[in-house]
C-alpha cells in the first residue's frame, strides 16, 4: 500500500495524532509540509503507511484530533 499524508493544524496535533495512531498499531511518522501543500502554509503532516487513508482519518476524527486536510 502506498504512503498517504494527512495535514494537521500544528506540530502539537501531529504529535498527538502520531501517538494515538501508533497506540492503535498504525505505522506513521511526522513530516513538515511544504507551504504549497496546504491552504494556509506551514503545517505538519502524518505520513501513514499500510492503512486505508479514510480509516486513519476517521480514527483521528473520533479521537478529537482535528486534521486540516488530506494532502495525498
Amino acid at each position, binding site marked *: 500500500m502506498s504512503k498517504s499524508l494527512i495535514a494537521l*493544524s*500544528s506540530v502539537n496535533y501531529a*504529535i498527538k495524532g502520531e501517538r494515538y495512531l501508533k497506540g492503535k498499531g498504525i505505522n506513521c511518522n511526522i513530516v513538515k509540509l511544504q507551504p504549497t501543500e496546504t491552504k494556509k502554509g*506551514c503545517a505538519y503532516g502524518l505520513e501513514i503507511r499500510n492503512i486505508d487513508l479514510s480509516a486513519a482519518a476517521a480514527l483521528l476524527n473520533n479521537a478529537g484530533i482535528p486534521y486540516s486536510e488530506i494532502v495525498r
Partner: protein
Amino acid sequence: MKHLIYFDNAATTFPKPISVVRAVEHCMEDYCGNPGRSGHRLSLEASRKIYDCRELLSDMFGISSPTNIVFTMNTTYALNIAINALLTKGSHILISDLEHNSVLRTVASQKRNGSSYDIFKVYPGNDEATLRSLKSKLRPDTSLVVCTHQSNICGVRLPIEKIGKICNARRIRFIVDAAQSAGYHPIRLDRCHIDAVCCPGHKGLYGPQGTGFAVFSDKYSAPEFLNTTLPFLYGGNGVNSADIEMPDFLPERFEAGTLPTPAIAGLCEGIKFVNNQTYKKIAYHSNQLYQRAFDMLSSMKNVRIYYPFLLPSSTILFNADGYSSDYVADHLNKYDICVRSGLHCAPLAHKKLNTLKCGAVRVSYSFFNTQEENEQFYRALKSLI
C-alpha cells in the same frame, strides 16, 4: 563553603532536583532545536519533549486535552492571557482581598475596556464567611471571578471547590491563581469547575525559571470559543504562516515565538519529582517544618505570627517588634539565611494584615529544607531579638 539556608521557596524553589538540572543540560547538549518550526530531528525532538510536558500537566490538572496547556514565561503572563481570554469586555470582575499584583493590576487594567471590579473579603479559617462575602459582591453583570488558591504571603487557602460551584451555578467564569499551590496541593479543573488555572513551573513544580503555564478546561478546545477571544501576543509559531491572523486553536492561539525547550525539559522532570514524592509526602514535610518554626517563633515574646490559628502550610509570616521586616531579613542574610521581606507584591494582602507600611518576613519551605536549618534560623533570629 558555608551552608546556605534557602527559605524563599515561595518566590522560586532552590535547589532544584538534580534530574531537572540534568534534563536542561541534556536538552542544551543534544537536541535543542526550535520546536514546531522544522521537520528535522532536533526540531521534532524538541517538539516532542514539550508535548511530553503538556501531557504530564494535563494529567496533573485533570483535563483530557494536552493542547489546552498554554506555556508562558511565568504565572503573571498566564494570568494576563487567561483574564484577557475569559473576560466578557465591559462586565464585572470579582477578586479576593489576598491577591498578588499579578491579578490585581491585570484586573484593574481592564477598566480601559469598560470593565469594573470588586474585592470580596477572605475570612481566614472560616470558609463559610468567605463564601458569603463572595456572594454578597456578585452582580448580574459579573462574568469572571479570579482568586488565588493560596496566599503568597501566609498560608491562607481559599475554598476553590466551593467557589467554583457558586460560579458554575451562575455561569460565571472562574480563574485560579495557583502560583503558591501548584505542586503542593492537587487541583482538578473538572472537580472545582475551574475555567483556567495559572501556574509557575519554577516554584512548587521545581522547574527552571522562565516556565509558567495556563491550563484551560476542556470546553475551551472549541473554535467557537477561541474565535471570540483576542490573542495576548502576536507573532510566529510555525502554524498557518501564510495567514495574517493567529491560529484559532489551542495552544497556538496564545503561544507566539520560540518556547524555552531546555526549561520545559527541566519542568518535565520537576513534575515527575512531585509525582514521585506525592502530594501527601510533600505536604507532610512542609507541615513538619512549619510546625517547628511556629513553635520556635511563638516562644519569642516580641514576635508576631500572622494568622497563628491557620493549619500548617509551606509558608509562615511574621514580624519582630521594633524591627522592620527588611532589617530582620538583612540580619538573617548575614547568617546566609535567605528569606523575603517587604510587601511580596501583594499590597492588598498586607493592607488586610495591617502591615502595608512595614511589610513582614516570609519564611517559605521546599522539600529540600530540613529541621536542622530551622534550628539555625531560630538561633540567628534569636541573636537579634
